């Protein structure tokens, strides 16, 4: 084995070229991680929204809460179902909800509006959704036009401070609390009491009913029983699956973008690595010949040059991962095209993504270094020494 020191010293001999190659790879890795982090953030926000202990009930055939409608009768029938868990107060853990979108003006661009979800919930909703936590204020009082605002909306829209009054649907609503929901899509919503929201929008109908399953493992039984009831006419989804599926077309687009763009960039970076290494091999022809003459085997020379390229790539990849790290937590927003509402989410750089990015960079190095290393190992000693 040719000592790695040889490779390290060789790299120092041409600092500019080594740096350029490493930085090129670093940029590719950074873009790769950044774009995957975007998709990951969206997926995480939606995946965390639902709980696998909850069931979400929509009208049969409806693919989103927006498209659904469930009458009060059905809500009463559901509340009596044996599949619904009961809370400590003995009441069913079930929340019939009104789901509407309201346009809120963006502060930085008053002509543009964002469609924000206003969810009318029952007082049970706060227990049914176990990831909801108040970060400030107190829950809306029943019978009052009070709202609780998701944390991710703060700072992106005006009039959301506690005590402020927000105008929508022709009424003024008082902000009484802010809530967090473990980074989920709920944090992009405004919650109020369902009975306050209902008459203002669509009349006597809920959009969805979410309930806690008595036995999370018995979801299939609950689904079968409720969907078979012709009186109800509903589809039952596991809440976690329902939200995870909303990633939909946006998720596909982000993945295509991530892999397409970085794939093309990677090819460019590999070309760069190939160029650098070929030049390195060419410049060091006499050196290689000496190595071969003193008894190192061609395979060892191949490994040595491969190791050198790997070293550059690894340095670049780690640098790229470090470059990508600061995007973690940056909040961005887009429209969830399944529900047509605006959803805010954070870039999420996970350890797995970092590893993936570094692995990607290392692979670029190996691919880019192989042929030049191969050439180095095949050098004819006599010719090279001449």
């Amino acid at each position: 084995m040719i000592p790695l020191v040889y490779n390290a010293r060789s790299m120092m001999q041409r600092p500019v070229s080594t740096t350029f190659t490493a930085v090129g790879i670093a940029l590719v890795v950074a873009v790769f991680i950044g774009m995957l982090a975007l998709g990951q953030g969206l997926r995480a926000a939606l995946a965390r929204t639902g709980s696998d202990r909850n069931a979400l009930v929509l009208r049969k055939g409806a693919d989103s809460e927006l498209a659904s409608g469930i009458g009060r009768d059905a809500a009463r029938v559901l509340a009596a179902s044996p599949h619904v868990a009961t809370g400590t107060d003995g009441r069913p853990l079930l929340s019939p909800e009104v789901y509407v979108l309201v346009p809120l003006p963006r502060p930085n661009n008053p002509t543009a509006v964002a469609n924000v979800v206003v969810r009318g919930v029952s007082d049970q909703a706060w227990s049914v959704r176990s990831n909801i936590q108040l970060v400030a204020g107190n829950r809306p009082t029943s019978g009052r036009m009070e709202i609780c605002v998701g944390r991710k909306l703060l700072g992106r829209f005006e009039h959301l401070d506690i005590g402020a009054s927000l105008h929508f649907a022709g009424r003024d609503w008082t902000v009484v609390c802010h809530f967090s929901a473990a980074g989920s899509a709920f944090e992009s919503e405004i919650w109020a009491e369902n009975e306050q929201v209902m008459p203002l929008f669509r009349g006597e109908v809920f959009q969805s009913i979410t309930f806690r399953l008595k036995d999370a493992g018995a979801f299939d039984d609950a689904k079968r029983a409720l969907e078979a009831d012709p009186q109800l006419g509903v589809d039952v989804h596991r809440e976690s699956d329902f939200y995870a599926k909303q990633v939909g077309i946006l998720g596909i687009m982000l993945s295509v973008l991530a892999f397409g763009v970085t794939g093309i960039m990677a090819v460019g970076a590999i070309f760069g690595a190939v160029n650098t290494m070929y030049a390195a091999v060419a410049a060091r022809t006499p050196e290689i010949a000496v190595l071969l003459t003193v008894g190192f085997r061609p395979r060892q020379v191949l490994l040595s040059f491969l190791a050198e390229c790997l070293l550059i790539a690894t340095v670049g990849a780690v640098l790229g991962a470090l470059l990508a790290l600061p995007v973690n937590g940056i909040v961005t927003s887009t429209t969830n095209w399944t529900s047509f509402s605006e959803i805010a989410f954070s870039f999420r750089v996970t350890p797995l993504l970092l590893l993936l990015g570094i692995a990607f960079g290392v692979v670029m190095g190996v691919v880019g270094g192989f042929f030049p290393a191969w050439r180095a190992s095949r050098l004819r000693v006599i010719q090279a020494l001449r």
Partner: protein
Amino acid sequence: MKYWHLVTANLRRHKLRTALTILSVALALFLFASLRSVVTTLHTNSQFGGARRLVAMNKTGIVFILPVSYANKIKGLRGVRSVSWANWFGGKYGENARDFFPKFAIDPESYLGMYPEIKLPEDQKQAFLRERTAALVGKGIADKFGWKVDQNITIQGTIFPGDWTFTIRGIYEPSDPAIGDNVMFFHHEYFDERLGHAGIAGWFVVEINNADSAAAVAKEIDDQFQNSSAATKTGTEKEFQAGFATMLGNVSLLMGAIGTAVVFAILLITANAMMMSASERTGEVAVMKTIGFSNRTVFTLVLVEAGVIALAGAVIGLGVAKGFYPLIKFQGFGFLPGFNVTPLTMLWGLLLALGLMLASGLVPAMRAARLPIVQALRRVE
């Protein structure tokens, strides 16, 4: 240039290196053109809108409906030429999220009258207008699903439950790509009937006589319904589309960031290759200078070599971008109808290539020009 053969000879010396460098420039400019085109297409589409078309929708929000009876009241207003209305119809065709396409229930005669951009043969148009359960579909989705005229298709209702079967009577091609060739239109009358004559419209499209009176007419419409059960918000079609574009979020920023990283990464790679090939030739340059090549000529030669690489890469990259997307009919999953690499993007690409040439060729060229002969020759083995 009489030393052209010197440039080509140098480029041919390491054919693989030259090819790889040209290809990485090509890839960079292909990506640049693609990303910039996303931004320009979004922008163009957000600018879409007939100057004489207004859109009136429910003030409470985009998902709320208006009574279809408003049409008659709007029609009576001064300056209004005609009124049409439409409803968003969710609905599923196929299970896959990729199979989604927009479906609108429209008042056919007035709608097609207002949108001359929707082009289809006259006999198909008449057949579509005549039949209550007829559908008019864009060429894009017709090709995608292999639909033919007179074929029946069934849509599963989501917002409006049940199975909805339509007969395709027409296939249109939009003359303005922003309309999209992936929309399905059908009769509002049939829609209304299945809903038990609910009399709902998602929005109204109002054609006015004079584009200058848009603001006045919009205000008049909104005033008219100010105190009704459903107040309206009316604006030009352009405003409506622009609002839609902002819903995607800060795509432009994202594309810009990626584009910068891409271009910068490739710049490094090209500059690296150029510098390496220049440093290998230190001895040669010294010899050339010895036999009388001026500093300036040496400088120019190196720079021209960089230029040839950058230009060749630009032509390939931009050319492929221009030709490739129309070939696969790329529309960004329906979000980017009329996706197109504009001439301005091509020009920017060329400028970038020029910048690349300067950035990657300048240092080696200057180094070559300033090279002291004696020192350089001493290094020759």
